[in-house]
């Protein structure tokens, strides 16, 4: 992957990957930082990225794992969060609808949330989700089904409170 190809890849997929990681972790600024860091790693390993069948999946998975690792480090209180790629928050805040949706997603088990995000936001078919999360297709289908039911109930609960 040369510079122009990488720049195209970064520009075309950045927003989509951030959206998926934001929906997974519930923090848009953190998602943006982790995705940027994942792209930095992607460029530093571009020879391997060339061989990756799905570079966007590589970046998304790496960004998600970075977010989880950073959260774990922060919770343990033994290391400060990585802020090497911090940017001033200049983007407008997410809409009320996004905040409510993300809040409901956060109440789902991680496996169900991840399946829903990959299917509905990253637009992946079931067999690609199965490959990305390392689970059988049947398990992914079950997680999607349970996740949809649980999310619908949570959204309905939120609407009735409003």
């Amino acid at each position, binding site marked *: 992957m040369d510079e122009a190809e990488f720049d195209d890849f970064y520009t075309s997929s950045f*927003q989509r990957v951030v*959206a998926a990681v934001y929906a997974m972790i519930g923090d*848009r600024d953190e998602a943006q930082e982790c995705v940027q860091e994942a792209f930095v790693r*992607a460029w530093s390993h571009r020879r391997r990225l060339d061989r990756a069948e799905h570079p966007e999946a590589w970046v998304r998975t790496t960004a998600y794992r970075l977010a989880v690792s950073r959260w774990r480090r922060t*919770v343990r209180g033994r290391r400060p969060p990585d802020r090497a790629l911090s940017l001033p928050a200049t983007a407008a805040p997410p809409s009320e609808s996004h905040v409510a949706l993300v809040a409901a997603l956060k109440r789902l*088990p991680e496996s169900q949330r991840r399946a829903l995000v990959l299917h509905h*936001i990253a637009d992946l078919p079931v067999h690609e989700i199965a490959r990305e999360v*390392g689970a059988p297709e049947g398990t992914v289908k079950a997680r999607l089904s349970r996740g949809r039911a649980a999310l619908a109930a949570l959204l309905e609960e939120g609407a009735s409170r409003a």
Partner: protein
Amino acid sequence: MPELHDLDRFEDGLPTMNPLPAPEIRRRGDRLRRRRIGLVAGGVALLAVLAVGSPLLGGSDDRARDLQPAPAPTGDAGWITTVPDDFPLADGFPQPSEVRTQEDPELEPVCGHWQVTAEEIKVVHYTGESEDSAQRVLMLFKDSDAARAQFAALRSSTTSCDPIPGAPGSHEETSYGPVPLDHVARGAEETYAFSEQIRHDDGLVSDLTLVEVSRTGNALYFDSRYTAAGGDVVIAEELPAMEKASRVPLGALCRFAQTPCPQPATPSATPSGS
């Protein structure tokens, strides 16, 4: 309020973000790559420093070390207290890896309180592209009693840890537990293993860190691996792989025994149990 089908157009409604420009991402990637390559070279250089013995690293007698390899320095009671230059700590370890000495190594995971009072500590660390990682640590203590006490303290510290709950709404907790293994197969005087994993409320187990600790004489050897997956099946796969990869350094631990082995151990000299 949002509805379920709003998930399908989640990205569309998000406000435009201001990412770093692509050339800046590449510049940082290049810098990361250079640093990674530099760390490998630095690791080799550090090994060379250890080989000639540095006063800063605890050597008390520097005579003629710059002329030829010296025998491993020993403490008052004859225990080896400086890591020999030819100790195969990085043998069988994933590359690229970073080698360094460290007074206060960060042992992961340690859920309890454990104070290290070693004479010398040498660390090899590896981080993969997807956050997979591995670490080996060799600690030498003033004598076998000190090492035995540290081994017991660490074991006690890591086997009595309560689960750590996850963030609010995360439906997960970090749990710790001992891992049964056949210590005789490791070739050390005593060995134990423990794990850290994240348990999700739907039964999924992930983020396994598996740690094996071995003691022979005045030496403690730590071998740890992190993988995104978790559970008993993963542990059952990782343990023999760790043992196989660590066969050479585990075999060489006998050099720190009360009656040291005369030659550095070779893979064939190490018990082959898995």
